[in-house]
């Protein structure tokens, strides 16, 4: 009887704590690192990944996910599951649709609609080149998508921005997860 009582109380505590400590990755990706200061990457976590919070130190959470334990920056997480962008749902729920589309524009420059519009309004080659240039820096963080061409039809060079480039931007500016982070054992 005593054993059952203990077991029930334990199950109750476990239940409540599991509810309170689940978090989701809300950013496009989050770096799971061994230590907030040293930042050795364990793995990248995708948006929507559910993680279990273990503890907190300043703006960092110690979490566990799929057998890995490490630290993740607080603002990359949310207590509720992030919603799927409806504009990507229309692409059959493919979360990489946005990147694939932008990568494709590296090949052709303007979309078919953009080209028709430009023709109908007699928009000059110069202005088309401006638009190609405007969208020539393409952020592709998934690693599963790549730009198809290095130059658009109008001769504008296409540049890929990777997740490392984004992380470097934060590090150079000592921003967010690269500001004065705590050292932990």
């Amino acid at each position, binding site marked *: 009887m005593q054993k059952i009582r203990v077991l029930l109380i334990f199950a109750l505590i476990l239940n409540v704590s599991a509810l309170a400590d689940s978090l989701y990755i809300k950013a496009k990706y989050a770096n799971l690192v061994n230590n907030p200061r040293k930042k050795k990457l364990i793995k990248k976590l995708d948006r929507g990944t559910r993680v279990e919070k273990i503890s907190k130190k300043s703006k960092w959470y110690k979490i566990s996910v799929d057998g890995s334990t490490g630290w993740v920056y607080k603002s990359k997480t949310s207590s*509720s599951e992030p919603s799927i962008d409806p504009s990507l749902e229309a692409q059959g729920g493919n979360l990489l649709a946005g990147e694939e589309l932008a990568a494709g524009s590296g090949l052709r420059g303007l979309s078919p609609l953009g080209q028709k519009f430009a023709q109908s309004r007699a928009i000059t080659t110069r202005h088309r080149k401006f638009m190609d240039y405007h969208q020539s820096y393409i952020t592709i963080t998934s690693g599963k998508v790549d730009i198809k061409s290095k130059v658009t039809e109008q001769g504008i060079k296409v540049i890929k921005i990777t997740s490392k480039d984004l992380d470097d931007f934060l590090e150079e500016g000592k921003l967010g997860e690269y500001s004065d982070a705590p050292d932990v054992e």
Partner: protein
Amino acid sequence: MRQMLNRKIIFTSFILLLASIFFMVACESASSFLNDEGTRKLTRSAGISDKVMGDASTVMEAGGKLVEAFESFHAAFSDMSIEDERALGESVSLQAYASPQIGAPIHHPKLMFFLNRMANVLAQNSERPMIPYHVAIVHSSDFNAFAAPGGYIFLTSALVLNLDNEAELAAVIGHELGHIVKKHAVADLQNGKAWEGFGKIVEAGSKVTANVFEENLQEFGKLVTEMSGQLIGSFNQYDTSIELEADYVGVQCALDTGYDPQAMLSVFEKLKAYYPKDSKTHPSLEERSRRVQEFIAQQNQEDLEGLVTRTGRLERVKQWIREDLDWQP
């Protein structure tokens, strides 16, 4: 007696366990309800519904199906795929480049690399982090920034040269991200003729897509002209409630990225100094400033520590702008 007590404890524990399971299931249901597509649509339109209704009543008095047409178009715009949204935004941006107020983009690889990394880093912390964003600084003496659907952001050279630190640039880009994230571009279209044609098509049962735009190119041209004209108009073109929504996204993204959100307030001061005192912009900026201050006051002290205002990088950006001649490709 002891046995009875034991039974009571077991019974209470069992009830508590059941209650906790019930609570968890209820939480899951509530969460799935909040993430439900229908509910999300309501949430998405919440910020602009007043304005739409305001427009609607005026048009209703004029007596027409324009209200329905606009609502159909507005709903269709909210439901667009990213491919179609980008195609629309691209055309609006092309029209902007073709207009006399907007000059060439600053043609500088380091500046473009810096700016586009910054916008996409900020967007990581928005509600719409899965689409790529593109930003350029264009030669213009207007003090302006605007965003076209699908992820296109324009900043004028005059605006960026007037900023004092990187956090102010983050606030401006964050605000423009807000317009894209919340899909504000059609919220303030004043000219009924611009969307009437598409509203009728939607009424007939077809969705507004890039293909529908292509098949109705003349109507599409009117819509794009209206939209780009409105964006180029001035920094504070939208209704105050819409600007507030974009401000909120902007300061939230800036804060989550590690920038001091106070910078939004100093940008407002610069806008006040730029616009004449009698313009409608001033009272709106007062209200926006108050609301941003409230937002900052609501944050945890810990989250406001270690934030960045200056990095020295904006000075390089300004130097690259000053060195750039009008690009003649």
